[in-house]
C-alpha cells in the first residue's frame, strides 16, 4: 500500500471537508496509487484548497476553472491520476459551463464535489444547490431560486459515472471514491457535507436523518431508474452509484491518444515539417 501524507488545513473545526480528505487519502492508499503520479486539481473555495493539504502533485487554479485545467492535464499525460476537488459553487456555479461540456468530453478524470449547499469561503451566501427559503445576508427574504440537481443533470447530460455520498458515512464514501477513481471516464461524485459555520439548515443531523445507502437491489445501469432515483432529495436521500455506464473516453476516441502513449512523450518526425512546407511551394 502506498503512503500519502495530509497536512494542516485552514478549515473550520467540525467541517465535513476533514472526513472527505481522510477518505480520499485512504482511497488512494488502498488503490495503491503512487502519489507522484496523482494530480489533485482545485478551483477556488474551501473545498478547492484540498490539493494543498495532501502529498500529491497539485494545481490550484481559478474559481470555476478546475475542470478545464484538469482534463487538459490528463490529455497531456494520461499516466496521471487526475482528481478534481472543488465545491458546488466552483463546480456548478462559476464553472457550470465546463461541468456540462466535460460530461460530453468524457476525459478519464474524477470529480469530487464537496456540496454543502452554501458558500463558505465568502461567508454564507446561497449556492447553486441551496434550498429555497434559505435566509442569508444576501438572500434576505430567503433564497428564491430552485436548487440545481447536479446528479440529475449529470445523468441527463450523459455522464457515465454519477454518484452521491455523504461526508458522515466514511466507509461508504471511501468505497465510492475508489470506484470513481477506477472508472474509465469522467466520474462525478456529489458529496454532501455540513457547513458548521454558515449552513444552519443542512446540518449533520439533517443529512444523517435522510441519507440511506442504495443496496444490491438497485440496478445502477438502468438509466430511467437512475433518473427517478436522482430526483429523490426530500425526506430520503439515496447514497451510492446512481448511474454507471461504460462509455468511450476522450483518449479512446482520439486518434493520437488512443495508442496509449502520453501526448507529452510523442515526438514528431521532422519530415512532417518538410511535407507541410512543400504544400505551400
Amino acid at each position, binding site marked *: 500500500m502506498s503512503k500519502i501524507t495530509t497536512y494542516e488545513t485552514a478549515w473550520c473545526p467540525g467541517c465535513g471537508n476533514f472526513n472527505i480528505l481522510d477518505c480520499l487519502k485512504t482511497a488512494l492508499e488502498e488503490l495503491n496509487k503512487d502519489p507522484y503520479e496523482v494530480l489533485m486539481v482545485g478551483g477556488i473555495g474551501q473545498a478547492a484548497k484540498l490539493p494543498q493539504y495532501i502529498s500529491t502533485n497539485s494545481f490550484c487554479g481559478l474559481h470555476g476553472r478546475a475542470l478545464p485545467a484538469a482534463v487538459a492535464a490528463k*490529455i497531456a499525460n494520461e499516466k496521471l491520476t487526475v482528481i478534481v476537488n472543488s465545491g458546488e459553487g466552483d463546480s456548478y456555479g462559476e464553472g457550470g459551463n465546463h461541468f456540462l*461540456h466535460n460530461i460530453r468530453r468524457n476525459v478519464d478524470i474524477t470529480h469530487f464535489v464537496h456540496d454543502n449547499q452554501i458558500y463558505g469561503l465568502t461567508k454564507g451566501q446561497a449556492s447553486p444547490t441551496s434550498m429555497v427559503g434559505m435566509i442569508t445576508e444576501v438572500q434576505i427574504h430567503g433564497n428564491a431560486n430552485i436548487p440545481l440537481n447536479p446528479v440529475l443533470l449529470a445523468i441527463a447530460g450523459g455522464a457515465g459515472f454519477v454518484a452521491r455520498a455523504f461526508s458522515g458515512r466514511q466507509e461508504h464514501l471511501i468505497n465510492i471514491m475508489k470506484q470513481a477513481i477506477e472508472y474509465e471516464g469522467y466520474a462525478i461524485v456529489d458529496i454532501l457535507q455540513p457547513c458548521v459555520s454558515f449552513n444552519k439548515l443542512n446540518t449533520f443531523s439533517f443529512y444523517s436523518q435522510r441519507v440511506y445507502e442504495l443496496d444490491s437491489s438497485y440496478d445502477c445501469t438502468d438509466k430511467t431508474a437512475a433518473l427517478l432515483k436522482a430526483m429523490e432529495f426530500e425526506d430520503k436521500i439515496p447514497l451510492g452509484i446512481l448511474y454507471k455506464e461504460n462509455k468511450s473516453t476522450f483518449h479512446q476516441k482520439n486518434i493520437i491518444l488512443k495508442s496509449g502513449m502520453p501526448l507529452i512523450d510523442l515526438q514528431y518526425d521532422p519530415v512532417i515539417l518538410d511535407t507541410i512546407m512543400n504544400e505551400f511551394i
Partner: protein
Amino acid sequence: MGGICRIRFEGGLLTYQSREIDKSLRYLIFINYKGGIIIYNVLIGGTAGQGIETMATILQKLLKDSGYHVFAVRDVMSRVRGGHNFTLLRFGIEAIQSHSDILDGIIAFDEDTIKLHVAQLKQDGFILCDTQWKIEDSRIISLEMVSLAKQLGNIRTIGSIAIGALLKIFGLKPLHMDEVLGKYLKEQYKEVNKKALLQGYDMAVSKYEIPEHNDRDLLMISGNQALAFGAIAAGLKFYCAYPMSPSTSIMEFLASKSDKAGIVVEQAEDEIAAINMAIGASFAGAVAMTGTSGGGFCLMVEALGLSGIAEIPLVVVDVQRPGPATGLPTRTEQSDLKFVISASHGEFPRMVIAIRNHKDAFYQTMRALKLSKKYQIPIILLSDQYLADSVATIEPYDLTDMAIQEDNELLDSKEGNYLRYRITQDGISPLLIPGKTKNFVTADSDEHDERGWITEDAEVRNAMMNKRFRKWDKLKNEVQEPEFVGEDSYDTLLLGWGSTYGPIVESVNILNQDSYGKYAALIFGDIYPLPEKLLKEKVSNAKKIINIEQNATGQLADLIRERTGIVCTSNILKYDGRQISKDEIVNRIRKEVLE
C-alpha cells in the same frame, strides 16, 4: 471619378505617372513612381457564394506556379450569401509586401463590383465582365462568359473562364492547369473547368506583356497558416480554442495537420475553458497554445494572470479585429495593444510580440513558444485579420533546430529536494513535469511560497513578486529592436507595428523617390516590454515623427510616450476596418507636406 494615368518605359525603367483625385482627401495628388518594378493589381469582386474565393485561390496558385510573386487579400462581409466581397491580387516580378488601392484591372461578377471600384481603376486599366452589364466605360472588356458557362453545362465555370481571359489579357500562358485545378476542385469538376479556362483564354486579347520570371520555390502562405506552421515546428502538442473570426483558421490548419504532427486540437466550450485548458496541458508538460480575437481574449484575461503568478508557460494568439464588443467581425484593426499589455488584474511579467508579416508569423510564433517556456510567462502574439487572411509569396522557412527541447538535467532531480518556486538569481525556477520524477509539482493562483503552498506572509510575497519581475529584467535583454527601413539620412521617421509593416515599407520606398523629403521607418515586432534603444537613436536624427496605426487613439504613440517621453509629431490613424495601403500612407503624408 477616374483620373489620368500613363505608363511608359524609359530607358528600361518603368515610369508610372498618374494624376488622380483622391476621394477621401478631396485633394489633387501627383504620383510619380520610378523603378524597375512590374507589379499588377487586380480586383475580383462579386457576391458571397459566387465562388470568388475559389477563383482567386486558383488564380493565385497559377501565377505563383508560373514563377511570379503574389500578394492577395480578401475583403469579406460577415455573411455567407450575398453582399459585396472581393479579393485584391497583386502579382509581379518583385517581392510584394502589401496590397494596393490602385487597380490595373477589375474582374466583376456583379454590377456593384464595377460601381464600387471603378474610381480606383487606372485610366488604361480594364474591367473584365460579362456582356449582360451595359456599363459605359471605354475600359470594359465584355465577354460572353455566362452563356459560355451555360454551354459548358455548369454556371460555376464562369470563374475559370475569367481566369483564362485574365491570363490572356496579361500575356501569360495557361500553364500548370492540371495540378492547380486538381488541387482545389473536386475530380468531377476538373475537366470542365480546364475546358472553361482554355476557352476563356481564347476569347480574350492580350493587353500587357509581363517578362518571364521563375521564383518557383517560394512559399505561398497566409498569415494564420504561417503562424500555425511555426507552432507545429516548435513542437506544439496541444491547441485549444473557441472558433472566432479571424483566428479560426489557425485551429483549422492545426487540425488538418494534427494526426501527422501528433497534436491534440480541442474545440473548447468557451474561451475561458480554452485558456485554462492550455494552462492545464502546459502544467502537465505539453507545449500548449490558444488563439482567439479580441472578444475572446476579453474572456481569457483572468487566466492570463494565472499563467503569470503560477509561472506556467503559455502563448495566446490574439488575431485582432475591430471592436469594441462584436465590432466589425471580418475586418481588421490594431486596437488591442494597450489592452493586452495590461490585461488581467495585478502585476506580472509578460511579453507581447506583434506579427509584422508572413515571415514573422512563422518564426515569432516559434520564438514565443520557446521564450514562454524559458521564462515561464504568458506571451501574447498580436496578429490581425489583414495578416491572418492575406496570402503572400515568401522565401521558404529554415527548418533546422526547431522543436523545444526538454531540460534533461531537471528531469534527473533527486527525490524530495525540489522546490517548484525556488528563489533564484534570475528569477527562473526549475520547472518539472508532474509524474516524471519523484517530486511533487505544484501550481497555485494564490501567492505561494517556494513549495507552491498558499501564503499571506509579507516577506514571502515580496520575495515572490521580486523573483517574478527578475525574469522580466532578464527578458528585456532579449527583446528584438524594431526593424529600421530606409536610408541613414532622413528628415521624417515613420513609426508602426505589426501588419502595417508591408504598407509602411512600400510607402517609404515610394516617398524616397520624390522630392518631398527623406523618409525612414521603424516598425515594431517585439512591442512589450518596449525595446527603446534603436527608437531613441533613430528619433534623435529625425525632424519629424509620424506614427501610423490601424486604430483611433494612437496606442503605440501612447506607449512610446509613456516609456520614453518621446512625443510623435503627428499620427496617421485608420479605424474603418480596412487595412491602410501604401498609397493611402503616401497620399496622407504628401498632403501634410503640401499643407
